[in-house]
């Protein structure tokens, strides 16, 4: 395997702070984010030769974004595999930089799901925005009232059946992430919650309660990734892409064991490429569409054994100061989730690796290596998983 380490780095980030923007278009949010992320990097429009984006809206493509921003990129990637698309984008940018096809790219995303009243989790077939079903797989699935939360709840139900996982253990994930949100002034929900609060709240799709589910917001952002040569002259110290892996998982013609998710495959090349081990990971950004997503992802990334996720997420291990702090921005469960949240994982990992919060409780101490894992789609039907490992000098 070619040594890809220290070839590409995240050099600029910008998270659009809006959680509700009824007066803005998705392209405007992306445009504002791209400009600010380049400012953060100390770069300008003329430095950019790559554009990578994904959207839930079929019209919000790289083509339209290049038009809106009057850009003429020579590397374009519209890979759209759900919420984790941006971990795939970073991996693809790394490849292109190593191949000499790319010097500096912008990865960007936006959505106005909240102001558009999109029922991302519970809208049923309306989440596609059209009533006509494709012959397959829709016509064998959507007749039965699938919802996004339901497709994750089914996996949680079986996890409980096989391994004795409890609602209280799932709630531990929500509690830890809300604790982190309480330190993020931009987070949608900042009031601390308890395990009892979660398990005594309304059930959306059994066994998942309301706080087991991510929030719905507007929002967006941009990440600038650059070659080592460009990165050395940027404003911040580089956050290197040490390793990356991608995978998909699905029904497997009705026979695949759905209890193993894409992370079980995607983490292997990421760790192998990076040369780091699980013990080296100082913090992790784990896509938290639902609490079960986090629990299963941590198992299948190899942080604990299959079935032991319930114990692993308990007792404060996931909080800053614990053994593996996760989602230190408040995650999708409490801070923001415009529909495809993977780009925000890269941003918070970058902040932590820059030691941006030094001297405050939000900083993970001695943070040198971070892992991001994006999940897109639904665990109960088909989904993608992208793992990236990032590090500072």
């Amino acid at each position, binding site marked *: 395997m070619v040594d890809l380490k220290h070839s590409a780095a995240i050099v600029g980030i910008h998270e659009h702070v809006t959680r509700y923007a009824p007066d803005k278009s998705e392209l405007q949010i992306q445009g504002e984010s791209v400009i600010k992320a380049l400012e953060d990097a100390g770069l300008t429009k003329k430095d950019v030769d790559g554009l990578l984006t994904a959207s839930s809206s079929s019209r919000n493509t790289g083509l339209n974004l290049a038009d809106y921003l009057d850009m003429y990129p020579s590397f374009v990637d519209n890979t759209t595999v759900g919420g984790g698309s941006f971990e795939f984008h970073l991996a693809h940018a790394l490849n292109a930089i190593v191949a000499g096809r790319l010097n500096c790219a912008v990865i960007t995303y936006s959505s106005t799901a909240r102001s558009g009243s999109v*029922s991302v989790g*519970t*809208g*049923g*077939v*309306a989440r596609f925005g059209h*009533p*006509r*079903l*494709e*012959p*397959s*797989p*829709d*016509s*064998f*699935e*959507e*007749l*039965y*009232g*699938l*919802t996004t*939360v*339901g497709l994750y*709840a*089914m*996996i949680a*139900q*079986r996890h409980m*059946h096989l391994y004795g996982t409890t609602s209280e253990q799932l709630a531990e994930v929500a509690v830890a992430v809300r604790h982190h949100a309480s330190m993020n002034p931009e987070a949608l929900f900042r009031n601390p919650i308890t395990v009892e609060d979660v398990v005594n709240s*309304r*059930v*959306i*799709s*059994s*066994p*998942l309660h309301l706080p087991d589910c991510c929030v719905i917001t507007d929002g967006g952002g941009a990440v600038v990734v650059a070659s080592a040569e460009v990165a050395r002259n940027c404003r911040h110290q580089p956050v290197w892409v040490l390793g990356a892996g991608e995978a998909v998982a699905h*029904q*497997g*013609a*009705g*026979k695949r064991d*759905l209890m193993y998710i894409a992370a079980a495959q995607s983490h292997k090349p990421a760790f192998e490429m990076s040369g780091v081990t699980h013990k080296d990971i100082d913090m992790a950004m784990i896509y938290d569409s639902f609490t079960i997503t986090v629990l299963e992802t941590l198992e299948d990334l190899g942080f604990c054994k299959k079935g032991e996720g319930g114990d692993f997420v308990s007792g404060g291990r996931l909080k800053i100061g614990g053994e593996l702090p996760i989602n230190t921005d408040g995650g999708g469960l409490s801070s923001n989730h415009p529909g495809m949240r993977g780009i925000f994982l890269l941003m918070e990992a970058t902040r932590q690796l820059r030691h941006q919060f030094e001297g405050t409780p939000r900083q993970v101490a001695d943070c040198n290596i971070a892992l991001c894992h994006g999940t897109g789609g639904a665990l*109960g*039907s088909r989904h993608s998983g992208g793992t990236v490992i990032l590090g500072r000098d």
Partner: protein
Amino acid sequence: MPEWNKPLPTISGETKPYWDNCRRGRLLIQKCDSCGEYQFYPRGICANCWSNDIQWITSSGKGTVWTFTVTYQNGTPGFAEDVPYVLALVELEEGVRMFTNIVECNPRSVTIGMPVEVTFIQATNQISVPYFKPVG
């Protein structure tokens, strides 16, 4: 027949035998003559070995609940008025799983491993939809 307000399947050449047989009260799955594997949902090639030697098999229509969720919130017309309803993956005796609803029972009585059998509800003159109900 009450008006059907849930989504209806779109039928293509490769899935037409499935829907034709649902109308006659038979649940069809596929078996590959080359590699011997069963598969669901139906398709024009064997997903395992990519051969075209696909045979339609009548399933026993019996299976067990592999996993499920009781849905309390779905804004889509046709489902909004059905909550709470049970969305499930049923594993057929032949070894393949399919999405369905568990009907004709209290949603809170459903458990993983529960034996179930297929039952059909006529949606239109052309289309009957397979569901599952507890055995016995």
